[in-house]
C-alpha cells in the first residue's frame, strides 16, 4: 500500500513537471522549429465568412511560396473574442506570434511591453524603402506609429461608401448618387414612397443602424472634431456636431428607418431601400444577394472632404522567438505588398493599403465589375483615423449609446444627447 502511494506521488511529480516544462518551453504561442528548419507561427484574427475564406486562401498561398515558413491562421470569429483570447494569452505568457488588433489594444500592448516595434524590421535588410513607405495610403502608417516607433501595420482597413439601387433611383427620375448633404436629403425624400398605392410606404429612401462611425464621418464632413487637439476632452458636442446629428436624425427617421444591427442591409438587398451607407467590406457580404442594378458612390460631401477609415492592424508579439518574429514580418511585408493587398481588396472590399495597388490589373478589373468602387477609394486620400487611446475606446461607447442612440430613438434632442454623451466621455477621459 505504502509502495503504491509512493508510486502515485512520483507520477504526480512527473506529470506536474512535464506540464510546467511544456508551458515554459519556447517563446510565444507558436511552436518551435521541429528540427526540419520550418518556422511555424500562429496568426490570430477575427475574420469570418467570406473574409475568413479570403484570408485563408492568401495564407495558404504564402505558405506554398515559403518552404521555410508555415503560418497557422486561427480565426477567433469576432473582434471581442479575439481581444479576450489575446488578453488571456498575454496573462498566461503564451501570446501568438502575430494578431489582428485595434489601436486601443495596441496601446495597451505597447504599455505592457508585449508589442514588438516593427521599425527595426522596416529599416532592416528585409525592410521597406522610403519610396515603398510613401506608397502606403497616407495616414495608415501614422495610425500605426506611437512615439516615432511603428508598432503595428495596416491590415484590413475600410472606408464608408454609399450603396445605391440604380433601378429605384431611375423610377423617380434620378440617374446619379447624391454628391452633397442637400441632395442626400432630397433624394432620400424622393425615394421614400408608396409603390403599390395601398397608402403605406413600402420603399424608404435610406436606412441605417445606430452607428458612431456614421456620425463621426458626418461630424468631420461638417468641420467638427471628435476630441480636442490634446485628446483630453470631447469636442463632438460643438455646433458642427449638433448640426451633423440633426442631419443624421432627419435622414434616418424622416426618410429612412433605423434597424437593429445589419438588418438594413438585408432590406436594401430586398429592394426595399433606395440607398444605404455601409463599409466597403459589406460588399463581400452583399455580393450575389441582390437582383437589381447596384452601384457604389463616395459619401455625399459637405463643408469638408473628410472621412475616417475603420478596421484593424496587425502586431508582432515581443515574446516570440526571433525566427518567428522575422517570419511574421515577412508575412506582413508580403501581405501589404501592392500585388497582394490589391488581391485582398478585390476579394473582400477592404481598401488596398498601397496607392500603387489601385493601378494593378486585378484592382482595375474589380473597378469595372463594381461601379463606383474606384471613386469610393478616392476617399482614402483624405481619410484619417479616430482617436486611438483606450480611454476613447471606452468613451466611444457613450457617444454611440448616450449620444447617437438617444437622438435616433427620439428620446433626446440631438444637442441634449451630444451634451450628455460629452459629459460621460469627459469623465472617462479624465480617469
Amino acid at each position: 500500500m505504502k509502495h503504491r502511494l509512493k508510486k502515485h506521488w512520483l507520477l504526480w511529480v512527473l506529470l506536474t513537471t512535464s506540464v510546467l516544462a511544456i508551458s515554459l518551453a519556447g517563446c510565444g504561442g507558436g511552436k518551435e522549429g521541429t528540427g526540419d528548419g520550418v518556422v511555424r507561427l500562429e496568426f490570430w484574427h477575427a475574420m469570418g465568412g467570406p473574409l475568413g475564406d479570403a484570408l485563408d486562401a492568401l495564407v495558404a498561398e504564402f505558405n506554398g511560396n515559403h518552404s521555410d515558413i508555415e503560418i497557422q491562421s486561427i480565426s477567433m470569429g469576432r473582434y471581442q473574442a479575439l481581444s479576450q483570447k489575446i488578453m488571456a494569452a498575454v496573462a498566461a505568457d503564451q501570446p501568438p506570434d502575430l494578431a489582428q488588433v485595434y489601436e486601443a489594444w495596441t496601446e495597451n500592448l505597447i504599455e505592457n511591453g508585449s508589442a514588438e516595434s516593427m521599425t527595426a524590421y522596416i529599416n532592416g535588410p528585409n525592410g521597406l524603402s522610403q519610396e515603398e513607405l510613401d506608397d502606403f495610403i497616407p495616414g495608415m502608417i501614422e495610425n500605426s506609429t506611437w512615439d516615432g516607433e511603428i508598432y503595428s501595420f495596416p491590415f484590413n482597413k475600410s472606408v464608408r461608401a454609399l450603396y445605391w439601387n440604380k433601378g429605384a433611383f431611375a423610377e423617380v427620375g434620378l440617374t446619379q448618387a447624391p454628391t452633397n448633404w442637400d441632395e442626400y436629403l432630397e433624394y432620400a425624400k424622393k425615394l421614400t414612397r408608396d409603390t403599390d398605392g395601398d397608402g403605406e410606404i413600402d420603399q424608404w429612401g435610406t436606412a441605417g443602424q445606430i452607428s458612431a462611425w456614421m456620425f463621426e464621418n458626418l461630424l468631420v464632413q461638417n468641420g467638427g472634431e471628435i476630441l480636442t487637439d490634446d485628446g483630453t476632452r470631447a469636442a463632438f458636442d460643438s455646433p458642427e456636431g449638433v448640426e451633423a446629428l440633426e442631419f443624421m436624425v432627419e435622414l434616418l427617421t424622416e426618410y429612412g428607418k433605423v434597424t437593429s444591427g445589419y438588418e438594413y442591409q438585408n432590406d436594401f438587398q430586398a429592394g426595399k431601400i433606395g440607398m444605404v451607407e455601409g463599409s466597403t467590406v459589406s460588399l463581400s457580404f452583399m455580393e450575389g444577394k441582390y437582383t437589381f442594378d447596384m452601384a457604389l458612390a463616395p459619401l455625399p460631401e459637405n463643408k469638408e472632404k473628410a472621412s475616417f477609415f475603420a478596421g484593424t492592424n496587425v502586431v508582432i508579439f515581443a515574446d516570440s522567438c526571433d525566427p518567428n518574429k522575422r517570419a511574421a514580418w515577412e508575412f506582413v511585408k508580403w501581405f501589404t505588398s501592392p500585388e497582394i493587398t490589391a488581391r485582398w481588396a478585390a476579394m473582400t472590399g477592404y481598401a488596398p493599403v498601397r496607392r500603387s495597388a489601385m493601378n494593378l490589373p486585378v484592382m482595375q478589373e474589380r473597378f469595372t465589375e463594381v461601379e463606383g468602387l474606384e471613386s469610393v477609394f478616392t476617399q482614402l486620400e483624405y481619410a484619417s483615423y479616430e482617436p486611438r487611446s483606450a480611454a476613447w475606446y471606452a468613451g466611444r461607447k457613450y457617444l454611440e449609446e448616450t449620444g447617437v442612440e438617444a437622438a435616433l430613438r427620439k428620446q433626446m434632442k440631438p444637442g441634449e444627447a451630444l451634451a450628455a454623451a460629452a459629459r460621460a466621455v469627459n469623465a472617462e477621459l479624465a480617469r
Partner: protein
Amino acid sequence: MTWLENLRRKKFMDPLTAALYLVPAGIVVIVFRMIPIVSAFILSFFDVKMGRIRGFVGLAQYVRLFQDPTFFSSLGTTVYYVAGVVPVSLFLSLLAAVLLNQKIRALGLYRTVFFLPVVTSLVAVSMVWKWIFHPRLGLLNYIFEVLGGNAMVWLEEPRGIFEMVASGLGWGWWPAGLSGPSLALIAVIIVAIWRGIGYNIVIFLAGLQNIPNQYYEAARIDGANSRGVFWKVTWPLLSPTTFYVLLSTTITSFQVFTQIYLMTGPPVGGPMGTTKVIVYYLFEKGFDAGGNMGYASAVALILFVIILSLTLVQRRLVESRVYY
C-alpha cells in the same frame, strides 16, 4: 466481526479516508471557486490592462466605481430585473406546483412541459425568444396584430413601462425618474420567468410531497375548506422550501448575464443601456480590450457584498416565519 462492520469502523470512520473522498470535489471548488474569488479580491486593488498587472492602486478602482453613473444605473437595472423576476416566478411556480400536486390526468406530461425550458440550452432559448420579440417578423407582434392590438418594438423599446402606460392612458406628462424598467427589460424578464419556473416547480413539488398526509386528513376532519387547508397547513409547512426558492432565485437573478448578452442590442445592454445589468457592466469593463480587470474585479466584489448582505437580511426577516 463481519466484514461490513470492519469496513465501517476502519474505513468509513477513518477521517483520512473521508478526506480522500473529498479531494476531487475539493480541488474543483478550490481551483474554480476559491482561488478566483481570492484573486478577484486581490486584483481589485491593482491596475490590470490587457492581461498584465500594471501596479498597486489601492482603493482607486472603488473610488472610480462610485463616481461612475453607469455603475449605478446598471445596479438600478439589476434591481428592476430582480424585482420583476423573483415575485412573479415564485407565485407562478407555487401555483403550478400546487396544481401539479393534484391527481390529474396526464400529470407526467404537464410536469415535462413545465420542466422542458430548464433543460433547454439558455443560448437556444434566448435566440428563439429574440425572434419571437422581433418587431416586424416576430410571433408576438403577429398575435398582437391578429387580436387587433398594436405592434410593439419590444427589445428595441427604451421607454419605461410606467411611462408607456401613462401615455397609453392619455396622460401627457409622467415624472422622468419614475418611468420604470424599459419594455426591453420586461421582455428579458418574461423569458427569465418562463425559463426558470420549471426548476422552482420541481423544488416546490418536492416540498409539497414532504408534507405528511395526516395533517391534511386532520384538517379535513376538522372541517377545513381547501383554502383553509392551503393557508393553515400547506403554506406554513412549505415555508422552508419557499424560503430556499426565494433565496436561490434572488441570487441567480442578481447574476443574470446570458440572456442580456444574447437577446439585447446591438450594442448589448441596449436600447440606450436600459438592459445593461451589473454583470454585463462588469464583463464590458473587464473583458473588452480597453478594459481593466482590476476595475471589473472591484465591481464583482461590490456585487458579492450586495448579494451577501441581501441574503443575510432575507434570513433575518423571513427565517423567523419559517417552520422547520
